[in-house]
């Protein structure tokens, strides 16, 4: 099945810094989502972005489907941005199975 790799696995930032999280995937996709998992374990939808670029406040995401990667940008980070960021995809070629998740990037923003 499709493989999803996220980098870096861990990231520590000073409040106010910018960061880029990367998601590589091994096959063509028809769905790609970015999630933020808060300390209570809930998954918050950030972007549904199988291709192109989207922005929402301090966050933006770009997916280059032909090159099989997606980037999540966080600008002017805040302590509330801390948590785990997951990328998840559905494969176009593997029987259209539900979302396959990467291992996540654990972000800690320090005041």
């Amino acid at each position, binding site marked *: 099945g499709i493989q999803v790799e996220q980098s870096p696995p861990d990231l520590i930032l000073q409040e106010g810094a910018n960061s880029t999280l990367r998601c590589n995937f091994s096959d063509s996709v028809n769905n790609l989502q970015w999630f933020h998992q808060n300390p209570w374990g809930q998954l918050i939808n950030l972007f549904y972005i199988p291709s192109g670029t989207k922005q929402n406040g301090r966050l933006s995401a770009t997916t280059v489907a032909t090159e099989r990667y997606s980037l999540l940008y966080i600008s002017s980070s805040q302590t509330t941005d801390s948590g785990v960021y997951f990328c998840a995809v559905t494969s176009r070629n593997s029987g259209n199975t*539900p979302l396959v998740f990467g291992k996540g990037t654990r972000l800690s923003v320090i005041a």
Partner: protein
Amino acid sequence: EADIYQTPRYLVIGTGKKITLECSQTMGHDKMYWYQQDPGMELHLIHYSYGVNSTEKGDLSSESTVSRIRTEHFPLTLESARPSHTSQYLCASSEGDRGRIFSEAFFGQGTRLTVV
């Protein structure tokens, strides 16, 4: 905004007990899923459904079972809980066409299960 609900949020139960984790959504989504997640780790798909009377096993072997009798309801049952079942269970749903394309998924708040 997504409306998908899981109960209970937290459950501590003894070994050997039968438990059912509830998941309901009010969005009329055809597709529903259950994922299992150990603390700080990735999510693994354990069950999914394309619609009423449809259930499929996911990638992670699980001793749980599911049913889909109504569109809005997708409960997960453990016939005999064991300490190895201790984990977080996350339910999700998505709409899409009547085929098997999965569109944007929305997650419930999760159930943290501890089996002692």
